[in-house]
């Protein structure tokens, strides 16, 4: 917040250099910019913490344990901080001009505010997205990666079970068998004349990280692409177990909540 205040003060001083006649006015313009910078940063950090489920004031004070991450969270907190800082700056600078009444100050505050919200939102979104990506999370939502077993069913959809549930004691062998991808009588699986098998990768999984084949059925020339994987089995293979990961926000139904995720500081 101190850095934001100093930047805000210096920028406001430079932008209003033509309106400054004495030291007192310069100090006032610096003070308005510094206050706007501090308010903008404080509100941005507070909203960021509040989105993550922490208290607003813990975010302002910089003591929150968690921060929200991803473009969406960054956009909201950046827009809130940008509006607050912009409003304070516009209101304060209008107050410095002789002849302006309270209505003029609010009008100027609103004008600076919405522009600050747009700029803050875009900048905050990009920074939030970069923060998420640097922590192996989804750029847009900040969602974590969940390890899954994916079954490619006969209509080409993916049926998922989390890897921890798959290994857990409450998953029966019947459950594990269910998540095998059948290679026969499955329209999502094709075999060409050379015996090369191609399996369509469903949208429900973001990345395939492992292919498990039954004992004594080696797979040759395993190639994994964006939308399909292919291989040539040396022996007859009835099924595969596909391991991968998905972003936890990658669900079939839209949920507003799935736009916002947190990470620990």
């Amino acid at each position: 917040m101190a850095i934001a205040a100093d930047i805000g003060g210096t920028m406001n001083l430079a932008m209003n250099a033509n309106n400054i006649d004495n030291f007192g006015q310069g100090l006032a313009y610096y003070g308005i910019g510094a206050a706007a910078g501090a308010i903008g940063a404080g509100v941005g950090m507070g909203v960021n913490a509040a989105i993550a489920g922490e208290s607003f004031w813990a975010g302002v004070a910089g003591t929150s344990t968690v921060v929200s991450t991803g473009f969406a969270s960054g956009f909201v907190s950046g827009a809130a901080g940008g509006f607050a800082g912009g409003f304070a700056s516009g209101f304060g600078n209008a107050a410095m001009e002789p002849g302006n009444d309270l209505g003029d100050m609010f009008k100027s505050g609103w004008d600076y505010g919405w522009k600050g919200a747009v700029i803050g939102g875009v900048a905050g979104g990009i920074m939030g997205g970069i923060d998420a990506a640097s922590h192996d999370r989804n750029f847009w939502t900040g969602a974590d990666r969940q390890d899954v077993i994916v079954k490619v069913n006969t209509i080409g959809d993916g049926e998922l079970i989390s890897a921890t549930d798959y290994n857990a004691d409450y998953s029966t062998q019947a459950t594990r068998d269910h998540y095998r991808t059948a290679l026969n009588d499955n329209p999502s699986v094709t075999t060409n004349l050379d015996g090369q098998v191609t399996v369509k990768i469903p949208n429900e999984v973001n990345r395939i990280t492992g292919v498990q084949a039954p004992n004594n059925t080696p797979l040759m020339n395993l190639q994994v692409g964006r939308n399909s994987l292919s291989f040539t089995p040396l022996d007859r293979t009835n099924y595969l177990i596909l391991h991968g990961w998905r972003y936890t926000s990658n669900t079939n139904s839209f949920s507003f909540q799935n736009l916002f995720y947190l990470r620990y500081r």
Partner: protein
Amino acid sequence: MKNKILYTLIFILVYTLTYGQSINLNDTEYLTKFRDIAFVANDTVLKYTLFIEQNGDFYFSKGRLDSSYTEGGVMYWINDKRQTTTAQQLKYVKSTSEVDTIINCFVTNTDNYDEKLNLEFLKFSYIIEHFGESCNIEASEKEVIRLLYPCKDINQVNEYCYVKIKLGDNNNAELYSWFGNSINFDGFKVFGNNTLQLKKRELKKINKLLYAINTNNNKYCVSPGNPWLLELNFNRVYSQNLISYYCFRTNKELGKIVKVYYLIRGINERNFNTCSK
């Protein structure tokens, strides 16, 4: 001459891109050891198997397996560039014929039995035992907060931090911190033991949050994800809270207890950086 070199380079490039992935394929074994577990809960002994993979991943399965168990197959690992890096034969070996006993540290409700919850009870009882702690803080210590949290909210987790706060009589409190992980067949190991005196404002915040929540009830919300355990022995009332972040996302009633967790975890991580080790 120049053309020959150019064609040779193009050939090497095309050959590497086309067949390089198969050339690097390295057949090895991926070993998982398992052993018998007796989980003692409410005078009942439940039979389980503990699996420990060679990278330290550990998990439990209901029932017992004999030494001839060989379920496995071949695993082809694929890297971030979508290239096959290794092919490994999955193998299972019984590590010992001895049976390990784990005492259940939780109150099991036999009328409303939940398999997922029971599995977390087993896992947390196993970890608490490795931290050398007694199951029941109610009987042994007064005014104590215990927090045991995983370093990851989701997926297989092998790293846990354990924090104990002893609330003193003279408005002071001591925080004890441990870290444990499992990185190989040796299973869960505990490292380090740090201590600090809580600052007055930290203690004030903790007390304020504790007075605001109802500590009478045990709260369990464990799926999906990896839960953390917060035990409170406060104002002569003992309660257990086993909550995962992904469960909390859909159950905002737990907000107050989650804030206690955030606060204590934050103090521990700021001072000892345990989950980043």
